[in-house]
């Protein structure tokens, strides 16, 4: 008995009938990969999804009936390339960034109200506790403020010198922007490490926020004890509003991250991490430009304006601006 060919092989017939449409798709893909979807004419553009579906269909058939490995590999590759061309997600980067800051970022912040409140709370608790403790016994100042951060501002410093720091003008005008960029680089890194600390379940994030709060509170207490409390806050807040907000947002991201690891809910930890991790990363991304703005304010505005009243006004304006941005931006979508 022979099994010789009296009839055309089914897989060969299938190939003969479909081959032309595969080659048409292939030539379209070649052009797209070289120079983008824009090169296709209107007709070709409408043709693309049809050819893609046909290639997907061919692949299914070929997997079922053909033992020609080259054919199946070719069709798999063709379907993959077509899939990448159809779902490439090519966007205009500027447009995407604009959309992100106009809508997505405020919405994200709103959707994480609870971790945001916890992060805020940790920072505020640090400030209050640091302030109260230092007011009662000034020696604690040395415990709360690390030497590097103190920079000659200790309970032993005479009041006049403390005052001078608040109103000091840098001698070199040109060095200001270097200082600003250095601050920005430094702060943005701190914010990003806040996110990374979320890996450890979020506890270090709360500690970090709390201890930064302690430092700030202790310093405020030192100035308050010399009757300079109001002027100290006028010195901190114009840039501090933005900077502290950005720090808190990064802390929020760290908490979201930590919560995804500790409480994955109905998903596996990996899946929860994927969905939440993306949101957390986006929060940090939104916070980075805020650090940039804060650093600009810190180095330029602070040394250009010496009047506490003006400083208070600007701080209030900036705070209002942020509240409006987050409330309006979130409700627009």
């Amino acid at each position: 008995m022979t099994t010789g060919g009296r009839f055309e092989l089914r897989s060969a017939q299938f190939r003969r009938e479909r081959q032309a449409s595969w080659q048409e798709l292939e030539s379209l893909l070649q052009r797209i990969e070289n120079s983008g979807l824009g090169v296709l004419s209107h007709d070709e553009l409408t043709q693309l999804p049809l050819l893609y579906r046909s290639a997907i269909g061919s692949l299914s058939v070929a997997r079922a009936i053909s033992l020609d490995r080259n054919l199946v590999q070719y069709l798999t590759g063709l379907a993959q390339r077509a899939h990448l061309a159809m779902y490439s997600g090519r966007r205009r980067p500027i447009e995407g960034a604009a959309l992100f800051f106009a809508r997505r970022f405020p919405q994200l912040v709103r959707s994480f109200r609870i971790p945001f409140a916890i992060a805020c709370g940790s920072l505020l608790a640090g400030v209050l506790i640091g302030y109260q403790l230092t007011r009662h016994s000034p020696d604690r100042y040395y415990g709360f403020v690390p030497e590097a951060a103190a920079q000659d501002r200790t309970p032993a410093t005479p009041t006049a010198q403390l005052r001078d720091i608040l109103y000091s003008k840098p001698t070199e005008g040109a060095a200001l922007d270097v200082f600003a960029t250095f601050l920005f680089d430094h702060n943005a890194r701190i914010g990003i490490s806040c996110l990374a600390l979320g890996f450890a379940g979020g506890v270090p994030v709360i500690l970090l926020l709390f201890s930064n709060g302690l430092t700030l509170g202790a310093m405020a207490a030192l100035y308050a004890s010399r009757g300079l409390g109001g002027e100290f806050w006028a010195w901190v807040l114009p840039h501090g509003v933005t900077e502290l907000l950005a720090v808190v947002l990064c802390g929020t991201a760290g908490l979201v991250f930590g919560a995804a690891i500790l409480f994955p809910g109905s998903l596996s930890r990996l899946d929860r991490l994927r969905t939440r991790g993306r949101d957390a990363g986006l929060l940090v991304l939104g916070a980075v430009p805020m650090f940039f703005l804060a650093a600009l304010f810190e180095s330029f505005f602070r040394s250009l304006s010496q009047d506490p009243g003006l400083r208070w006004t600007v701080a209030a304006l900036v705070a209002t601006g942020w509240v409006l941005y987050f409330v309006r931006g979130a409700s627009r979508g």
Partner: protein
Amino acid sequence: MAESAAARTVDVLTTDGTVLPFEQAPLFNRLGALCVDQLIILVVTGIIVIGSLLLLAGTLGAHVLSLMIVFNFVLRNAYFSFFEVRGGGATPGKHWLRLRVISRDGGALQPEQVLVRNLTREFEVFVPMSVLAAPQVMFPDLPPWAGALCSLWLVVGALFPLFNPRRFRLGDLLGGTTVVSMPRTALGSELVDAPAERRGVTGHEFEFTSAQLGQYGIDQLQVLEDLLRVHDAFEHQETLVAVLRRVEAKIGWDTPTPEGRARKFLAAFYAQLRRHLEQKALFGVRQQHKREGRLERGGSPSEPPR
């Protein structure tokens, strides 16, 4: 090869409901693409530095420095995201090495995913590099052993892809992305001689019985396919003859075929074997492997098939 290839694919379920087995990009290629991209960043930064020094020499000394810091930060962090969003998942380096970033959920690659997967780059590339370059500078306050431990901890982030079978970076994990190689299989010619068959020509020069064809399975068919698709190699003839003799022995072929006709014999065997196996597959029997033992001369089984 089939097994190892299977272990290195990333199955993506498309929104059309088809599973596409993308080929996972080899780590070596990804490293190469990273080097190319870093080189581009370095060269561009260098050109800007030299250009601004030449143009603005003396006038704006400190401003140039601060511009440099900002520019370097932006370039370092925005380069990858910019190109991966704009180019549909490929930076110039990836494009060159035929790599693409894809979304694991089978949908379009969202700009958000790209941004998040590149957010961790600072930790995975730049921090470990500075740790390796100057460990003592990173942790000046710590004792050496603690500094070494911290450095190790920082470097681990960069080595993360080595510790999971899917070769995800931390950023891939967060962004829900993965890096794949672009397919490059070209369509070969049809090996089954279709026109002759369509004419309904019977009486091939080589005719095989179904018992003879039944000796081999799909694995061998596809090895034979690879063999027949090679045309140019000079030593190829020896391989063909060697395979021819083994096939003849296995199926109990009566008369040894002349060496010059080896390709003809194997092509005919391939065509008939494929028809035989495809027909069986249509009825739900996929014979993957060859049978044990050989046939007697004339094609009758020397031992009952197990």
